[in-house]
């Protein structure tokens, strides 16, 4: 596989998964940026375990997921039902705190970063295939779980919370428990993705987990559409991939293009390109077509 394709596919998968990690809590109006801190914590921890404690990668990855989930759960005990703004503040603060801790821990490279993570499977080719399989396995698994969540009674409860918290409460929805559930899920996911993110580059640096990541994930989520899981899935490869084909002169304007796109979408299509209505009507048109096909086959018989 061409190297550039590998990096494109793997980073796209990271962007999809992390946009979903933002999408799920946003179903109950929470912008949960603590996920970036979770990526950092689990990533560095797994890097340390593999590099210095010689723990097998798969165990380090599982520990990364678990640590992300535990942190997410503990934090959610306090902010499970907090309003959007408070959750955003907690997220930003946790990124700062985590950065400061990492900066002051020479054992994990401090401000210099962590170098020389080994190839999983012993050689670069196998490493790349393993990373891709895990990432796209996760995309399928999480996509399925989120789909089930969206189409379950919990998903409908989340939609009610999104529209009106008080109304949702009066309908008997436990907003805090729901918030805790989605926050823990997104932090667990972020923990594992953080480990994989570092192993794509085979190194860790504090600036891998900077505020630029929030910008990328937010653009993917809001341009794609925050009301369905399909938005990030479709937008992540386009937003990340298209600029790579821009000529050099245009590439310098990439950030400006992202910004303009975000402003335009928020202004013209506030729900993003892929809305629930769009998905619903697409589903209907497919089912009509399918119904017609079945009907015509039956008639032929």
């Amino acid at each position, binding site marked *: 596989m061409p190297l550039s394709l590998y990096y494109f596919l793997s980073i796209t998968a990271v962007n999809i998964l992390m946009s979903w990690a933002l999408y799920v809590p946003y179903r109950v109006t929470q912008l949960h940026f603590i996920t970036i801190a979770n990526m950092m914590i689990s990533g560095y921890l797994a890097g340390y375990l593999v590099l210095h404690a010689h723990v097998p990668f798969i165990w380090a990855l599982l520990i990364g997921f678990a640590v992300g989930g535990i942190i997410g759960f503990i934090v959610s005990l306090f902010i499970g039902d907090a309003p959007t703004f408070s959750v955003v503040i907690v997220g930003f603060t946790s990124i700062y705190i985590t950065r400061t801790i990492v900066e002051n821990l020479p054992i994990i490279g401090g*401000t*210099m970063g962590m170098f020389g993570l080994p190839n999983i499977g012993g050689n670069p080719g196998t490493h790349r295939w393993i990373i891709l399989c895990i990432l796209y396995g996760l995309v399928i698994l999480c996509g399925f779980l989120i789909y089930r969540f969206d189409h379950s009674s919990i998903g409908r409860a989340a939609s009610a919370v999104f529209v009106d918290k008080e109304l949702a409460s009066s309908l008997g929805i436990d907003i805090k428990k729901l918030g805790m559930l989605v926050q823990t899920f997104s932090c667990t996911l972020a923990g594992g993705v953080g480990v994989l993110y570092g192993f794509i580059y085979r190194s860790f640096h504090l600036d891998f987990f900077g505020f630029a990541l929030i910008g990328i994930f937010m653009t993917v989520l809001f341009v794609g559409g925050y009301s369905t899981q399909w938005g990030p899935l479709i937008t992540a490869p386009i937003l990340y991939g298209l600029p790579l084909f821009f000529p050099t002169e245009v590439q310098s304007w990439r950030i400006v293009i992202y910004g303009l796109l975000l402003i335009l979408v928020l202004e013209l299509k506030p729900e993003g390109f892929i809305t629930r209505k769009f998905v619903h009507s697409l589903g209907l048109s497919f089912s009509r077509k399918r119904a017609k096909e079945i009907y015509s086959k039956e008639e032929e018989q």
Partner: protein
Amino acid sequence: MKRQIVALLLILVAVSFGFSQTKVVVNEWRIPFLNCLTGPIAAIGEFLQWGANYAANEINAAGGIAGKPVRVIPVDTGNDPQKGSVEMARIVKDSLVAMGPVPEPVILAAMPIAVENQMMSITATTSYEYAVQFFPWTVSWFPPTLDRLPALVIGWAKQFSDLKQVVQFIEPYGPWPGMAEAHSKALAGLNIKELKAIEVPTDAVTFGPLVVRALDQKPDGIILVCNAEKAAKIIKELKSRGWTKMNHILVFSSADDAQLYSTGGADLNGVQVYNYLNLEVSNPRWDKFKAAFAKDHNGQMPFSLSPNYYDALYMIKEAIEKTGVTGDPKKLKEERKKIADYCANVKGFQGLLYEWDMKDGVPTNKPSYIFEIQNGVKQFVLEVRP
């Protein structure tokens, strides 16, 4: 007679084969430069690119590399590891050699790709501690931090007999805490007491409280290990709080760029700064470079890292010409190695400012300097050689 003719023919064939082997097959040498042309350090990226382009123009005007023109291809990473890695993955497919990446987060993400594909990429702006991780597929532009910085601090401190206690302002970014450690080593060697360091947060905007904390410890000297803008603001704050011994302030090399002077203004008068770039050195190439730089940068003199990629391109030129690299895609692996091996141990390399040698990828005899700032101009104080 027949035998002699056959032998002569064989010699001719062998000679012509030899010539064809070293014949350059490319029409143009394309050297990608993974630079940071947008984003928070785009200003630095601009003058790094300027230096590389200037070298390319100069080389082309003098006949190119082995008779073929060279073109530096700017590849913007925007300080984004995601983009840097994809771009490096593209470059390693068929490039002979590259320059960059810039800066450290992109180096960490992209250099493992160059190493894996055994392609040299010269990271001429980072410290030895980063570069060494990717040897032999890069070279370090600087000797190890702990070897080169103590001598500079010793040189600075020895000027003042009243220097008994020193405090460092340290911004936790990349190799900077390591550089501060090297300063500490020098101070310990001189029996100068090092006071509790003041951490300068990366996102700091006000410096009053930090300066008060430093002054409370009653230091005689101050070393600033933070970015240019922060260093300038700390100096202004120190001055406004009564600090008068301006030459007892030493600014480290990474802070010696345009923002230091534009923000610090006249408050910098007397402050000392160490660097690898000596504007007072005069030779025809360097003088021409300075004049051209000033012309393109509103009269400003070259900043600390300006010549690095100029020299890097010349080093690549020398490697290609001296090792007979042809640019033949079929010999890509072999020729990449030739360039890397040559650069790692080049002797008597004619840099823009001075001549230097490399040993196993590390420069052995590059000088560094201490200057005193007066009215925005750096005045030479002393030179330190390893």
